[in-house]
């Protein structure tokens, strides 16, 4: 059981009045300890929805099929007791909107200590206090900041507090959903620095979700690119970002120009059209309507995720074709 | 379609008048709101009750002759219990309570609506201006609102009614002038939040002055609030009218539910057990107030998307 997280053939369908809406379709994903895997894609591609299944946080109207194995146990079928234990200490999440989820009238130190006390009621106040100081230092804040109220902190500091809270019960897996989207470049760099340091230092696994492929390329070991609820490409991050196989991954990576690259000067690269509506997916490859390399065959069948040596996979019938 | 490619696209002729289409579009959105409203059971109940009363008020001359209101034309005995001739009995003057009730609906509803219009206009205007314009003008209006808010309603209404004299118009005025501060505060707080929205800044960037920002952006966005609040204010105004009439401050020449209750009280209908003189007007007031409240709640749910689906 080497894998920390193993997702097999996971699909998630929202049931609505207008019929079933497939948000995630047949996704496989593996994550090891000490590894950072990034999920990239536009809004609405299903990346956050996929992540929600890891802690069974999907809304009750959703139907999930497949297997989500956390340390070998299926999250989708496990008992409530197990699930609670998993949510306490197994895996924790850092959300993008989390900056506003701090209680404005409680000192941040007390908020970090709360899950520690709840998880282990035996913990004395002194122990908890020490642990909070330790956590704050891990995320690069002085231990004295525990006495601050949220409004006294900047956005970057609040995000660090959120990370400290996520670490409080020593999880084995951290799911970070757009953890730096609202932050400035420099603060983003600070937070990413903290996150990658933690993963390597504590040996936890991290799943990071972002629309910004360049951030993922910088931080992650592997990247999974999603489109229309499916994985369209995955592989080592430098390769996915630098030499993408799937035209969508290629477009996504070209959207973030390399400063100094003469090809990008006065030539911003974008992708026409809008992401597909999950309630009305086009036939065949969902990317076909926007694809610059589309041919007739693309709309016939949903392309398989094929292997291209090493750890690389892509689902495009044109890869490897002239 | 890529934005960068080709051009020659300037001057595309529009086939249909945009304003016409916009009107159609608004009708659609109204119908959509109506469909949501229709699903709200208590709102629909309120609407039905209200429709019945509105019909009674409008059709009063057809339902009961206005001669039945004249004391000199009274045909029945004093405080007769309900009978086949007088379905709800008679009052102390021998008039049919049913006739009084039907004609009273007119006055009660009229006073309720007219006072609400006055209160809404004053409240919306003052709330809007005090919220939108900072500085001393806003501050003064805000203080004024608070000042009116803390004045107890009844003593002020009694004083005003005494000073102005007892007439239907004065009753409307008194209720209108005393019930606006709540609306003004509500509109003010809404205005304050809308004022900070980015689209107000955009309007300014486009070259809009204060008046345009207020009338085109703030007002349309507070209007749903105003509407939902209106129905509640009507209910309060009808109660106020009943209260004032019951206290003998109403228009002595007209019959309203409040004045009926006042009469009933004066002649000791409670002690003599003439329940038919007290219960019907009381029930009518409760029903109309309830109807408006139910409609108000339903409207708020329709117009405030955050409450939807609760």
């Amino acid at each position: 059981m080497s894998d920390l997280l193993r997702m097999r053939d996971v699909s998630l369908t929202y049931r609505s009045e207008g019929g079933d809406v497939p948000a995630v379709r047949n996704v496989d994903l593996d994550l090891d300890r000490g590894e950072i895997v990034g999920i990239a894609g536009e809004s609405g591609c299903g990346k956050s929805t996929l992540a929600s299944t890891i802690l069974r946080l999907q809304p009750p109207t959703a139907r999930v099929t497949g297997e989500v194995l956390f340390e070998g146990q299926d999250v989708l079928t496990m008992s409530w007791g197990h699930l609670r234990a998993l949510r306490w200490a197994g895996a924790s999440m850092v959300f993008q909107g989390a900056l506003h989820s701090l209680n404005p009238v409680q000192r941040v130190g007390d908020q970090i200590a709360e899950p520690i006390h709840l998880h282990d009621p035996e913990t004395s106040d002194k122990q908890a206090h020490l642990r909070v100081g330790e956590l704050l230092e891990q995320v690069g804040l002085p231990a004295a900041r525990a006495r601050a109220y949220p409004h006294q902190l900047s956005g970057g500091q609040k995000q660090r507090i959120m990370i400290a809270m996520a670490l409080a019960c020593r999880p084995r897996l951290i799911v970070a959903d757009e953890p730096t989207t609202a932050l400035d470049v420099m603060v983003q760099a600070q937070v990413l620095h903290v996150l990658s340091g933690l993963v390597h230092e504590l040996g936890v696994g991290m799943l990071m979700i972002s629309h910004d492929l360049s951030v993922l390329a910088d931080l992650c070991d592997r990247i999974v690119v999603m489109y229309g609820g499916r994985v369209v490409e995955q592989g080592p991050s430098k390769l996915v970002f630098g030499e993408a196989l799937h035209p969508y991954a290629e477009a996504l990576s070209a959207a973030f120009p390399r400063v100094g690259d003469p090809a990008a000067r006065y030539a911003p690269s974008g992708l026409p059209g809008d992401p597909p509506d999950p309630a009305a997916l086009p036939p065949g490859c969902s990317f076909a309507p926007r694809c610059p390399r589309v041919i007739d065959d693309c709309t016939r069948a949903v392309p398989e995720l094929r292997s291209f040596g090493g750890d690389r996979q892509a689902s495009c019938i044109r890869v490897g074709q002239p | 379609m890529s934005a960068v490619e080709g051009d020659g696209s300037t001057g595309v002729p529009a086939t249909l008048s945009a304003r016409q289409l916009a009107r159609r579009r608004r009708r659609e959105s109204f119908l959509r709101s109506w469909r949501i409203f229709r699903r709200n059971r208590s709102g629909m109940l309120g609407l039905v009750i209200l429709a019945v009363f509105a019909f009674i008020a409008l059709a009063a001359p057809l339902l009961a002759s206005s001669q039945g209101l004249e004391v000199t034309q009274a045909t029945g005995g004093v405080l007769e219990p309900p009978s086949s001739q007088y379905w709800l009995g008679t009052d102390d003057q021998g008039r049919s309570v049913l006739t009084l009730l039907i004609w009273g609906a007119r006055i009660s509803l009229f006073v309720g609506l007219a006072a609400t219009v006055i209160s809404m206009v004053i409240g919306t205007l003052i709330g809007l201006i005090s919220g939108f314009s900072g500085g001393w003008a806003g501050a003064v209006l805000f203080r004024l609102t608070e000042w009116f808010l803390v004045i107890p309603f009844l003593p002020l209404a009694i004083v005003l009614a005494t000073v102005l004299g007892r007439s239907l118009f004065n009753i409307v005025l008194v209720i209108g002038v005393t019930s606006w501060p709540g609306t003004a505060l509500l509109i003010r707080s809404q205005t304050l939040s809308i004022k900070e929205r980015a689209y107000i800044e955009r309007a300014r960037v486009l070259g809009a002055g204060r008046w345009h920002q207020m009338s085109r952006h703030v007002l349309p966005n507070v209007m749903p609030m105003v509407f939902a609040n209106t129905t509640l204010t009507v209910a309060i105004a009808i109660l106020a009218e009943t209260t004032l009439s019951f206290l003998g401050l109403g228009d002595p020449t007209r019959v309203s539910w409040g004045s009926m209750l006042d009469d009933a009280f004066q002649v000791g209908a409670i002690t003599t057990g003439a329940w038919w003189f007290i219960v019907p007007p009381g029930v009518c007031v409760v029903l109309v107030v309830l109807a408006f409240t139910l409609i108000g709640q339903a409207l708020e749910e329709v117009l405030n998307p955050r409450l939807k689906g609760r």
Partner: protein
Amino acid sequence: MTGRLLEARNVSVEFVTRSGHVARALDGVNLQVGAGEVVALVGESGSGKTTVARTMLGLERPVAGEVAFDGEPLGYSGRRLRELRRRVQMVLQDPAGALNPRQTVYESVAEGMRLHGLAAKDPAGRTETEMVAAAMASAGLRPPERLFLRYPHELSGGQRQRVLIAGALALGPELLIADEPVSSLDASIRGEILALLLKLRDELGLGVLVVTHDLGLAWNIADRIAVMYLGRVVEAGPTEEVLQAPQHPYTQALLSVVPEIEELRPVVLTGEIPDPTRIPGGCRFHPRCPAVADGSAAADGVERSCRTQPLEVLPADPQGHHTACHLAALRSSTGPRTGSIV
């Protein structure tokens, strides 16, 4: 159209904070945007870049210095501001919030035209509907008629941004200020919107001032770039020079943390921009400056100046490359590159 259009001349802007302190959001900013050029104003949040944009449009009033349009200082009467805003338009950050949720696309785009009565005095005699359609088409919303009656919540993020741009273009401005035009958009839409800005520059000769924290964006579209820190422009010049040979340690640090630049060792500055009620003495960047921290400023003997001697305000020179840094000045006086610090 040639010559300078909109310029900030030594502009300072102050705010009074809630606690009653005076915050100097801008402290002597010189900047020019000419017709047909794209200028990027870059910095972290708190650097004052949005305040510059707002001041240039007359939304903030400078306490010192002035904003001039076509050589003439701005007037702050309602009439003069309206006239300015017909010729200089701004596309606000956050396309989701900048459209009135109760207005249709048509009404939003037509709003500015109606405010200025443009349909009545169109030289080509077009109707309002035709003008709205034309503005929407040039913002890349095609076919416009199909979108006329949509409400903002029925549009995608990219479409909303285009509606905002169309609303600005409907006035036929000479200059467009875009505040973080793509930061809230998906990656794939980003390039499309930037390409639109470039197209507008090429086809309409529009001058564009882009306010952004994204250096990649500047590399994509800007002719010139001005880097701001704590209310001052600290480095300005042609994009190629500033981004490929940055002189100021702050620009160097910003550039090094752009995720895709692998050759550069990331210089992650600690802390954040200080609050403008307490601007540090000397060079305002010195408390976070990596050159001061690692001793290279001391080695070159400028550390004392860094801590005590204020720097001069950079001029709004549209050609040269200027840096407000004691160390860069010293190195340029000995090295090949010309700085401008006295």
